[in-house]
């Protein structure tokens, strides 16, 4: 069935999201934000997640850690397996274990992620204490333990940093502290949510290189969320492209940049200003849909230059282009005009499709 179970599919994936739906109940109705998300990360893999503001990148990641505010958020359907166990069905103890030893997250804005009234040492110490559950550590030991990650992130003068407050640090240094926190315990999966976006270019470059080095050293799997395509190209092995609560394309990084298939990915790539000059393309017309009332069928069809009739009625499932490339677009349902390999597509085209494909029986893209 699922063709999306990773591209180097041999061992069981480290993280697997299946048909995840997330709704937000707000005044005036229900925001149907995630609409059947599939996402896989294998051990030791660096996966990128690209999409525009408001496409659901952060919502997806927050549901993995179950840190979405509920209510208003609600998960009406879907499964999230971390090492074979469904995070959504876990009890409090189990969940705490996942958060303290399994998955950690770096947020976009380090200033908001750190508590302004505690010193770096206190905040880092809390993480150390929490991650060493069972072991009783003295204050001195905690301090020593907290110094190790600070040194790893090449923090100048780490001893003094422990006694500083976040406000005394620059943006880049604050992000280093957040990375240090995320790496306190030996983690298996690191979610980096736009780690450099709020920083200057040269500082962002430093942070990304630091992250890259640590990930290699510690052999951690990474999900890198960003809206900058260039960052993905330099940092990841495989990329998911997300639009309006759906994954629309997944490919190995090299493949995606060489042959983008989905019209949205095309638009996105063209819209990036190039160093080679030659002007900027007009981008993609329109804007991201209203989640209260998302368009039926493919959510991209109102903005799509190649929309067909079927796009307005049915939601496309993932079609396999080759071993490294899958795309959720009807243009490629019978094998793409570009393709050479054979289709592994066993479903007849136009059948009710795997990913939330009940939109033909329900009005306005309502989810099953």
């Amino acid at each position, binding site marked *: 069935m699922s063709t999306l179970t990773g591209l180097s599919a041999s061992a069981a994936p480290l993280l697997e999201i299946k048909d995840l739906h997330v709704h937000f109940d707000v005044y005036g109705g229900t925001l149907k934000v995630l609409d059947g998300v599939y996402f896989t990360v294998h051990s030791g893999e660096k996966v990128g997640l690209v999409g525009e*503001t408001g496409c659901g990148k952060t919502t997806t990641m927050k549901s993995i850690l179950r840190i979405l505010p509920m209510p208003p958020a609600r998960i009406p359907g879907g499964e999230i397996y971390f090492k074979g166990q469904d995070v959504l069905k876990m009890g409090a103890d189990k969940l705490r274990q996942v958060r303290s030893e399994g998955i950690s997250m770096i947020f976009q804005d380090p200033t908001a992620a750190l508590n302004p009234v505690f010193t770096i040492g206190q905040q880092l110490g809390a993480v150390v204490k929490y991650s060493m559950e069972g072991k009783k550590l003295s204050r001195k030991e905690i301090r020593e333990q907290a110094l190790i990650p600070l040194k790893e992130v090449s923090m100048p003068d780490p001893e003094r940093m422990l006694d500083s407050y976040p406000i005394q640090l620059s943006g880049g240094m604050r992000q280093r502290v957040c990375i240090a926190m995320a790496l306190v315990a030996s983690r298996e999966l690191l979610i980096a949510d736009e780690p450099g976006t709020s920083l200057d270019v*040269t500082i962002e470059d430093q942070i990304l290189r630091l992250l890259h080095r640590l990930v290699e050293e510690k052999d951690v799997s990474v999900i890198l969320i960003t809206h900058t395509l260039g960052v993905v190209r330099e940092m990841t092995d495989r990329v998911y492209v997300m639009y309006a609560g759906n994954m629309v394309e997944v490919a190995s990084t090299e493949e995606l940049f060489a042959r983008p298939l989905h019209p949205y990915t095309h638009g996105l790539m063209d819209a990036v200003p190039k160093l080679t000059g030659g002007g900027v393309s007009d*981008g993609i017309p329109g804007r991201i849909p209203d989640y209260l009332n998302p368009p039926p069928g493919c959510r991209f069809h109102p903005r799509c230059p190649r929309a067909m009739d079927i796009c307005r009625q049915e939601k496309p499932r993932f079609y396999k282009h080759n071993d490294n490339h899958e795309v959720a677009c009807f243009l490629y349902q019978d094998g793409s005009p570009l393709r050479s390999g054979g289709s592994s597509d066993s479903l007849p085209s136009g059948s009710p499709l795997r990913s939330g494909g009940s939109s033909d029986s329900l009005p306005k893209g309502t989810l099953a």
Partner: protein
Amino acid sequence: MTTDILTVTDLKKYFVIGYSDILRREPITVKAVDGISFTVKEGETVGLVGESGSGKSTVAYTTIGMYRPTAGSISFRGQDLFEGKKGRPLALKKEIQIVFQDPGSSLNPRRTIKQIIELPLKIHRRDENRQEQIVQLLEMVELPPDYMQKYPQMLGGGEKQMVAIARALATDPSFIILDEPTSALDVSIQGKIINLLIRLQDEFHLSYLFITHDLSLMRNVASRVAIMYLGKICEVAKAAEFFRNPYHPYTQMLLSSIPVVSEEEEKLKPKKIISTGEIPSPVNIPTGCSFHLRCPEKMAICSRVDPVMVEMEEGHTVRCHLYDQEGGRR
């Protein structure tokens, strides 16, 4: 030969942020802009690039008249913008307009689009048929006339920025300052705004001062680029030339830090200069060349003497001790 529309000469803007002691003897200043000079020619787009805290917005705000310079001058078509003690004459205000970075906060949420665009019309164009002019302005930025009755919150980020552009155009200016007009927007929308701005420039013969931190974008819009670091300009060049042959180590560091999407672009980047160090606080600017703490090619002289601008080629100037007055590398 095109004439200069804006000439900035040795502009300085210091902000007093406190005093060294209780008797208020020594003011503590932030040297936001510290002696910069550049010109903008008629119909040209000059890009001003720099990281946060480099003073690029201060340059914009001083030009528009929000601040008075501490020293130096800005002249517009030969007329000093700060000659009188009183405010700037209306005729000059009309000529210079600005588009801010975040349209979410630069448009009043309690006013309709009509009211927003009407205000500059009321002040600067005392004729009737205002309604018609507003429709025209909306048309110029490719928005339908029925947007007039909407409030900013009902619009998407890109559309809001277009309203902000329409508001700037309402006075029929000849010079517009664009202070990071697209950095709050997604890439898919950015292109539309940029192309709109380029089209308007041709149509109305506008000159732009384009402020951004995105060098790839700069490559595509600006005819000349000036790089700022901690209140000073460190390199000025024509856009194409600048990307082909950057001289200043900071510029090279900037260029090599840009994430790019294709191999062709990768080739254009100077060989990887590892970005190191922090941007120092503008309160405590290092002595000598302000970049020496992060510079991979620093020499003994750099920490003592502030370098002066030298012209390497025609129209390509750089402020670095590596290069001597004759335009050669030391």
